[in-house]
């Protein structure tokens, strides 16, 4: 009887920690469902509004990518906005945990070129930056600081100049 009570409480603890461990994965899935766009596409947003989920910063315009590296590496390219006080590209694992941040000073030129892969990519040269993802899937978030209507228009142009390409495994 005593061993059953001990086992019961051990399993309660296991259930508790399993829930906490799994919770971020569930949040990621729910977030993707809420946004409702397919993976490996750039999702450009406007300034956040009360309908935007999950504590958005109203100072920022975001571009999101829910990525999946199952079919190959991803290549992100675009122009670095030079007229803004803040721009960054953040990378998150499949459980929403942050793992890398890129800022304009990480690139030698006025544009960015990022290869996102699961393993170190040896073909990366010059202005390219290789980001190694700890998980096959995850999220990329571009943050553009927007202080005025002029910035809004400029960011919209910058968003249109960003591209995402799937590099097939056989390339």
């Amino acid at each position, binding site marked *: 009887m005593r061993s059953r009570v001990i086992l019961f409480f051990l399993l309660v603890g296991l259930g508790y920690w399993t829930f906490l461990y799994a919770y971020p994965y569930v949040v990621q899935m729910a977030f993707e469902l809420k946004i409702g766009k397919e993976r490996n596409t750039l999702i450009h947003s406007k300034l956040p509004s009360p309908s935007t989920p999950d504590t958005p*910063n109203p100072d920022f315009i975001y571009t999101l990518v829910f990525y999946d590296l199952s079919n190959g590496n991803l290549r992100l390219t675009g122009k670095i906005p030079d007229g803004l006080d803040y721009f960054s590209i953040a990378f998150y694992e499949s459980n929403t945990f942050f793992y890398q941040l890129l800022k304009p000073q990480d690139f030698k030129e006025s544009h960015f070129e990022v290869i996102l892969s699961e393993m170190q990519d040896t073909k990366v040269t010059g202005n390219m930056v290789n980001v190694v993802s700890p998980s096959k899937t995850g999220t990329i978030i571009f943050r553009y600081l927007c202080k005025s209507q002029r910035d809004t228009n400029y960011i919209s142009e910058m968003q249109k100049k960003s591209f995402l390409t799937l590099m097939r495994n056989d390339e």
Partner: protein
Amino acid sequence: MKNIFWLALIALVVGGILGFTVLSFRSLAPNTIKETSWKTNLQIGMSSESIFQKALRTKVGVFALPKEEVVYFMVDKDDEGNSLNADDKYEITGIAPATKIWSITMYDEQYHLVQNSIARYHFNATTLNVEQGETYSFTVSREKLIGNWLPAPQKGGFLLCYRVYQPPALFFPIQSSTLPSIRKL
């Protein structure tokens, strides 16, 4: 044997419900700053962040950045420790931090920006027109006010999030005097 299976299953479910309940009752980051109601999590992106802290952060502010890039402070109580309520009026005062990008944003209890007629959800250095080191002040209330007014929700509680981007090294360790004061009027 069958009994043990059911006992194990019930125990796991009870544990899961316990985890859900604990998380549901926590609405802010895990670490309180001494002498204030503000809370933060400085372990974001670090291996020292516990499973509980990670789960709570995911609930409160998914896709956060580490403290080198931004420090997030959240509060749901005034300086006296009473819950922020839309029925009351509050004065928020502080000193602009030594960084270009910072803001104080209001969220409802579901972590959404608060719907209002003037589409104002926050204040920052630009909208308050303050330089680093200068004092600022604004009022939170449901009724419309002239000047620096941040509209409160129509009912219920609310949260404030203070974000400090690219904090200077001197910002750490965080002192309570660097955080905005929230006084009920």
